[in-house]
C-alpha cells in the first residue's frame, strides 16, 4: 500500500508540474492569437472593439462579410460567428464582450440549430474556457455540472482540443482569407434539386436555449445596443420554420427581423452561391452581405457609427 501511495503521489506531482508549466505556456500563446476556430477569434474581437458585431453559428461565420457590411453601414464590423455555436454560447460571448466595451449594432443570425435540444448544451461553451477568469463567463461555465469546476483545477484543461490551434495561429496568424472573424468558404456545392426531399427535419427546441436566446436580445437592448435578427439564405425552399413565439418576442422587443427565404429572394436559388445546403460560399456571402447592408441601412435606426469603439 505504501509503495502504491508513494508512486501515485510521485505521478500526481509530475502531472501537476507539467500541467502548471504547459498551462502557463498555453495561456501565454493563446492570448497572442487573433484568429482561429477554437477561441483565438475572440481575442481579435475584444481587441478590435468593432461597433458592428455579427453573432451566430457557422451560418454567420462564413456568410457575413465584415468589410462589406462595414462599408454599407459606415463603421467597422467584426464577425463573431462560431461554427456549431448555440444561443448559450452567443449569450456568454456577449457578456464577455460587454465586460470590455459596448458595441452599437448586433446582427444576430438566426438558425434553429442554435436553440435545438442537445444532451450537453453547456459543452458548447468550450471556446470560452480560456476566458475562465471573466466573472460572467465563469458563472456560465460552472453551470455545466457540479463537478465541472474540478476540471478547471487543471491549467491545461481550458486548452483541451485547442493546443494545435494555438500553435498554428502563432505561426500563421490567420486562416487563409480570414478577415475580422469572417472566414470565406471557397467551395461550390454540387448541383442538386432545390427541394431536397431528404432534408433533416428541424430538431426539438430546448427551452433553456430559447431562454438564452431571449436573454441575449434582452441584454443587448438593456445596454442600448441595436439588434437586427436575420435568417440568412439556405438552399431549400421550405427550410426550417422559425418558431412563431420567437418572432412574437422579437416584435415585442421591437427587433427588426429579416428572413431571406428563397421565395422572397429568388436570386439565392443558384447552387453556385452555396458551399452546401446550409451555407453560402464566399461569392454568395458577398452578395448577401451587400443586400443585408442595404436593408439595415434603410432602417435608419442606427446612429452614426464610430470607426471603432474606444
Amino acid at each position, binding site marked *: 500500500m505504501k509503495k*502504491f501511495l508513494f508512486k501515485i503521489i510521485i*505521478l500526481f506531482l*509530475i*502531472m501537476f508540474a507539467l500541467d502548471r508549466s504547459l498551462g502557463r505556456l498555453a495561456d501565454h500563446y493563446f492570448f497572442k492569437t487573433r484568429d482561429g476556430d477554437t477561441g483565438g477569434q475572440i481575442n481579435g474581437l475584444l481587441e478590435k472593439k468593432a461597433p458592428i458585431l455579427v453573432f451566430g453559428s457557422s451560418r454567420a461565420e462564413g456568410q457575413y462579410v465584415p468589410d462589406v457590411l462595414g462599408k454599407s453601414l459606415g463603421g467597422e464590423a467584426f464577425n463573431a460567428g462560431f461554427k456549431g455555436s448555440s444561443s448559450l454560447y452567443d449569450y456568454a460571448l456577449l457578456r464577455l464582450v460587454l465586460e470590455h466595451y459596448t458595441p452599437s449594432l448586433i446582427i444576430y443570425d438566426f438558425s434553429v440549430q442554435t436553440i435545438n435540444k442537445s444532451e450537453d448544451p453547456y459543452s458548447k461553451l468550450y471556446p470560452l474556457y480560456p476566458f475562465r477568469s471573466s466573472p460572467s463567463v465563469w458563472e456560465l461555465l460552472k453551470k455545466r455540472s457540479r463537478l*465541472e469546476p474540478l*476540471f478547471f483545477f487543471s491549467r*491545461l484543461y481550458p486548452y*483541451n482540443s485547442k493546443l*494545435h490551434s494555438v500553435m498554428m495561429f502563432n505561426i500563421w496568424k490567420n486562416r487563409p482569407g480570414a478577415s475580422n472573424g469572417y472566414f470565406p468558404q471557397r467551395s461550390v456545392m454540387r448541383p442538386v434539386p432545390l427541394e431536397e426531399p431528404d432534408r*433533416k427535419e428541424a430538431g426539438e427546441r430546448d427551452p433553456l436555449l430559447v431562454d438564452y436566446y431571449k436573454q441575449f436580445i434582452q441584454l443587448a437592448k438593456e445596454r442600448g445596443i441595436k439588434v437586427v435578427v436575420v435568417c440568412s439564405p439556405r438552399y431549400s425552399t421550405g427550410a426550417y420554420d422559425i418558431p412563431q413565439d420567437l418572432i412574437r418576442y422579437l416584435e415585442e422587443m421591437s427587433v427588426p427581423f429579416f428572413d431571406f427565404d428563397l421565395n422572397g429572394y429568388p436570386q439565392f436559388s443558384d447552387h453556385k452561391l452555396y458551399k452546401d445546403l446550409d451555407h453560402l460560399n464566399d461569392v454568395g456571402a458577398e452578395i448577401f452581405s451587400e443586400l443585408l447592408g442595404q436593408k439595415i441601412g434603410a432602417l435608419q435606426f442606427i446612429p452614426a457609427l464610430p470607426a471603432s469603439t474606444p
Partner: protein
Amino acid sequence: MLFNSPQFIIFFPIVVLLYFLCPYRFRWVLLLCASYYFYMCWKAEYVLLLIFSTLIDYVMGLLMAKEPTKAGRKKYLLISLVVNLGLLFLFKYFNFFSDSARAALAQFNIFYNAPAFKALLPVGISFYTFQTLSYSIDVYRGDMKPERHLGIFALYVSFFPQLVAGPIERPQNLLPQFYGKYDFSYERVRDGLKLMLWGFFKKVVVADRLLFYVEAVYGNVSQHNGVTLLLATVFFAFQIYCDFSGYSDIAIGSAKVMGFDLMRNFNRPYFSKSVAEFWKRWHISLSTWFRDYVYIPLGGSRVPAARWHINLFLTFLISGLWHGANWTYVAWGALHGFYFTCSVLTQPLRERVAAASGLARHPRFHAFIRTVFTFFLVCLGWVFFRAANLSDAILILKKIFSDPGPLFLGGFRDIMYGVMGIVFLVGFDFWSRGQDVDQFLGRQKLVVRWGFYVLMALSILTVGVFDHASQFIYFQF
C-alpha cells in the same frame, strides 16, 4: 453512470477504498449496492427489471437443481428463457418486428396501425440477459451447480464493471471469484489502473475524436463522395474498436483493481488474417457465447456440410440481430455469415492460388495482404452497421466504388487528432504483439513506463473529448 464521466472518477475510488476497508464477508453487500447505484444513475426504475431477471434465474436455478434429469429441468429452463428473452424482445425488438410486419403487410394492401411499445431501452439489457441465460443453460446442462447465495448471484448479474457493456462473463469464471478474499495487492492495482488508463485513452482520445467526422459524414450521406465515405468508414472501424475495447479495458481494469479477473474481450482484431480469425479476436465474450449456446447446439460443424453452413449463417444472423433492432444489423450479421461460409468454401482454392502465385513463399507479405483484405471486408460490414438504414448503406457502397472526388476535411482538428490516435494505437497493437497493456508495459524500462503514463494522461487532458453526452456505442445494445 458512464465510465468517462466525472461521477465515475469519484465513484470508483470511493468504492475501491470502502471495498478494501470492508470485512470480507460484507464485501458482496458493498459491491451489490455499488452496482445497483451505478445502474440506477442511468434510470432508477429499470433496476427493477434487473432484480426481476435476477430473481427468476435464481429461483429457476434452484428448482433445476432439484430435478435429477434434463427432461425435468427443461420446464424451468424454458421459464427462464421465456422471461429473459421476452423482456429483451419487448424492450428491444417489439417495435422493430411490429413495424416490419406492418410494412410487409402493406405490400399486400393490408393496412393496420402497428402498436408501439413506448419505453426506453434498458441500458445493457442484452448483456445482462445473456449473462443470466448462460447461468440458466449451464445449470440445465449440469455443467455447474446452482448458486445458493442470492446476494452473490445478484452480484454476478449486476457486477458494475461489466454490467452494461460486458465482457459477458460465464458463471463458472465469475461466481467463484465473489467468494475469494482479496487483499490490497500493489501489482493488481497497478495493472488494473494501467488498463483503465489505456481504456480511457482509447475512448476519449481516439474513439470520441473520430466520432465527429464519422457523424458528419454518415449523417449526410447524399452530400459526400466515395473518398470521404471510405475514410469515414475506416474511421468508424477504429472508432467502434476503440470505443468498445476501451470500455472493456476499463471494465477489466476496474475489476482487477478489486481482485477480480474478467475475460479478455479483444485481441488486436484488425491484425486478423481472415474473417474467422477476426471473430476469435473481436468481442470474444460474445462470439464464444454464440459458439457455446447457439452454434454448437445447432450442431456446429459435426453435421453435413450444407447444414454446417446454415448453422454458421444462422449464428451470425442472430448475432447481428442481437446488436440492434434494425435491418442494418441483420444485414451486417448476414454479411459476416456469408464471409465465413465463403472463407470455408474457398480455402483450398485460396491455398492453391497462394502457392501458384508464389505468395506462399513470402509468408510475411502474404500475411500482410490477407490482413489488409480482411480489414477491407470488415469495413464493408461496418458500412451496414453504422448506416442509418439499408438504403443509406447501399448508397454508401455505391459511392465508395463509383464516386471519387475531393476529400471532405470538415473538422480538420478531429481528423488530425483521430489519425494521430489511430497511428499510436496501431503502433502499440503491433509492438505489443497481443499482450495486454499491463503485461507489455511491465517489461519496459522505468522511463518508458512512466513516459507512457504521463503521455496518456496528458493526451486525455489536452485532446480527450469531455462531452458529457458521449456514450459508449455498445450501451445501445
